[in-house]
């Protein structure tokens, strides 16, 4: 049986939900998000002690998540299928607003490339610095900046997201 590395359980307990939220933004699906977090943690486990000594474990796990998701996205069987709109109508009350936001964000994120999505989620949602994002994605800081700018431009042209942002201002 595998010996549990020191501090791993505490990390999972404390950060699992936050990781799942990031994973949902990357995948747009709760089942896949859970799978992605679990896979990333399984891959992190054997290197945990070294990571704790030399790196920020959370940044490392996020890097594994982004890379794993990039690999999964490239697989043919996961290729996105063109489908009709989900039949979920907005429910009454606050839930309706939440569902509308979720659907708009999910569809906006799906319109981005995996790299753009990863940069946006890590930079905006996880609040990592450009240097940290570059470290996670193993690319230059300049690439992070240009990718981020492309992603924001794409989102600005999304009518549903723009409408939600304007409603937020009002």
């Amino acid at each position, binding site marked *: 049986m595998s010996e549990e590395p020191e501090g*791993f359980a505490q990390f999972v307990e404390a950060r699992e939900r936050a990781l*799942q939220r990031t994973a949902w933004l990357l995948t747009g699906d709760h089942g896949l998000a859970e799978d992605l977090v679990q*896979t990333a943690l399984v891959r992190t486990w054997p290197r945990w002690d070294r990571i704790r000594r030399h790196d920020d474990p959370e940044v490392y796990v996020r890097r594994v998540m982004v890379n794993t998701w990039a690999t999964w996205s490239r697989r043919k069987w996961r290729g996105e299928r063109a489908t009709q709109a989900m039949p979920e109508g907005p429910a009454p009350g606050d839930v309706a607003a939440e569902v509308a936001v*979720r659907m*708009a964000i999910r569809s906006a994120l799906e319109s981005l490339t995996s790299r753009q999505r990863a940069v946006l989620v890590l930079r905006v949602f996880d609040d990592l610095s450009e240097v940290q994002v570059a470290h996670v994605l193993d690319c230059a800081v300049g690439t992070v900046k240009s990718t981020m700018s492309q992603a924001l431009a794409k989102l600005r042209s999304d009518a549903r997201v723009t409408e939600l942002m304007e409603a937020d201002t009002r």
Partner: protein
Amino acid sequence: MSQDLADLEAKLRTLMDIAAGEPPSRVTVNAVRRGVVRRRRAASALGVAALVLAGGVAAAVATQRAEPGQRSVGPATSGHSRSVTLPGHSGVPRYYIVRSVIPNNGSTPNREETTVRATFTGSALARIRCPMSAPYVVSWPVAPAANQNFFLVCQRATGPASYDKVLESRIFEFHVTRSGRVTRALPVRGGELGRLLVHSIAATPDGSEVAVIAYPGTHPPDLHRTPPDVIVIDTRTGARAIWQGAPPMSSRTVYWPQDISLTADGQRLVFLTAPQCFQEPCTTSGGQQMRVIMNPASGGQLNSAGLLIPLDPALGRSSAAAMAAVISPDGSTVTLAVTGALPGNPSPASVSVVQIPASGQRRLHFVYRLPQADSYSYFTADPSGSHFLLGTGTPSGPLDGRIDNGRLIPLRPDPVRVQAMVW
């Protein structure tokens, strides 16, 4: 960073925060530990296989060098190669989908649910829910496609009973992930079936074609007198073809489908039928048959389907009745679940699973036989057509399981509650 950009990012962060919601805590250290162990075992088995392969190659090279000019005869093998089995290569599907009844304690009606379970541990991993907002939604039937993709029929009704009217039927597709979780159900193109009551569903392994047996759902159908239609859907374009069941008219034999399946190329739809004559005289009659529709995407009349196998001679003119039938993906074999006496399983109270060539040769191959059975409930095959699930019953109680080398390996949950299973 400009103020505009900072403002945009802040708004976006707020929206993403709302969208991501508060997920339930489902990833645990124990699950991660199990994943680590699985990964290590797979890696070590792969290492052993690589060593064996390298050893084999080295031996072959050594043989070539030791005997220059001579041709090597047969493949070079090492003494250990036969004992190496890679985990996960047995081909048995890792997960199965179960429709089961959750009994309540008298005051409220029983609840039904559809769940994903692990084949080798039986543990329940996920519940399948239809994305429909209503109290009376049935998440069944389900058809498997390759790579753990499944097609699910969601049927919304006016009430919980089988005689309640269907308000809406729709086909969805979902995926069971490598760790047994379920992705969100996506509507299938062309999968809106209005108020039809869907009886069964079949899919090609690549999921490009789906076929359903459907009845009018606007009134409780009498399945013995209502002609069903078979609807074939191209899931890539949403195009639908309807194969209409002939109405029960006098002097006419009708061929209504009991069970349907598709070949991998989607070019043949095969169905099990018992020819019916509602008022004599009918031109043809006889026992059960397998009939075939070539090019099912064209649509037409079910009565015009060609005869594939007359089952009476194929089953040795016995009193047995075929309850379900599946064509193999390449179209070469039909596998049948049969109740009653057969040559090779003479007990009249028996359940057998037999294979016959689609060419109609009278050669029965027994996949499984249960001599003392007192009920039959379902039979399904995986997308490869080589692994089967069977629900039956013995005098000591119901028996649900997978067929493995002529044995029925019981699968969870408690069989009393199981309605059907697929994988």
